[in-house]
């Protein structure tokens, strides 16, 4: 068994292989992970919108030992990841980290948020630091406005 604690280091090896095959191979994998995640999240997000997203990431915050602040208001959900355990483990690794490890997160979350007609603004800030800011808006125009403030804005399959 590869322990669940070490999944991210296994993930990192998968990403390095796929990156060598080409960008479309990485994107196909992110979409597969996104489809897998739909099983736990799609109905919740559809039914409860931002509140459902808050519930999901609050559960993840605890279970994945994230140092993360969550803020919900009527217009948006904001996730401020202060210390990301996923990238932290990949950096604390005897194997080489994939340089664009952070990209997978927007790669699976983006298509899911698109499906529930909300609008994701994913600021990774710096790929070498385990922190990021994710904002999910009800209103598309507000999301477009927020994109201007991002330091390192992520894209995903379907949003180029």
């Amino acid at each position, binding site marked *: *068994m*590869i*322990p*669940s*604690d*070490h*999944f*991210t*280091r*296994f*993930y990192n*090896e*998968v990403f390095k*292989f796929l990156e060598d095959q080409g960008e479309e191979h990485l994107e*196909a*994998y992110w979409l*597969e*992970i996104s489809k*897998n995640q739909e*099983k*736990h999240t799609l109905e919740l997000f559809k039914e409860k919108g931002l509140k459902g997203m808050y519930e999901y990431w609050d559960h*993840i915050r*605890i*279970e*994945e*030992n994230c140092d993360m602040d969550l803020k919900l208001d009527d217009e948006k959900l904001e996730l401020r990841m202060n210390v990301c355990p996923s990238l932290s*483990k990949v950096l*604390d*690794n*005897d*194997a*080489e980290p994939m340089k664009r490890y952070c990209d997978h997160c927007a790669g699976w979350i983006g298509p899911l948020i698109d499906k529930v007609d909300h609008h994701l603004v994913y600021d990774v800030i710096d790929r070498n630091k385990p922190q990021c800011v994710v904002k999910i808006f009800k209103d598309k125009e507000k999301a477009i406005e927020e994109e201007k403030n991002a330091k390192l804005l992520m894209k995903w399959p379907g949003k180029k």
Partner: protein
Amino acid sequence: MNKNNLDQKLRYNDAGNVHMDFHGATNTTIEFIINKYGIDTMNDIFKKVGNDVYKDIKHHIKKGNIKMLAKHWQHFFDRENADYNISINDEEIILTVNRCTAYEHVRKLVGNVSPNFCDQTIKTNEALAENTPYEIKTEILGEAACRQTIRKRA
């Protein structure tokens, strides 16, 4: 359970909560890679996990310190609340997993577990032992059960 105290520090010594759903993502990944690239590619990735991610454990095995692998097994099977027994001596370690909670969690999540799910154990173990004086044999005893044995090569 037969537990043994081993006073050695693990390279990866996780604490805190356990996110078992990652096993579901492992199952999805195994199916995706095998369907798209074939089983040899999947096995090559597991080989990298054994050789590179677990470089420290492999280093200990090379030097004859197989108890570090026992400590790794105990730490993570305890964290995942598996039902297992382990017998440890200087020459041989036998880990018997009676109920693998990773396998059971995936079955609960997705219904059917990939027939290659246990390859993560078999192939990673093989890579850990490759180019060392030891071999690691993984026998599947049934669903969610296996025996893993490390001993000196004949």
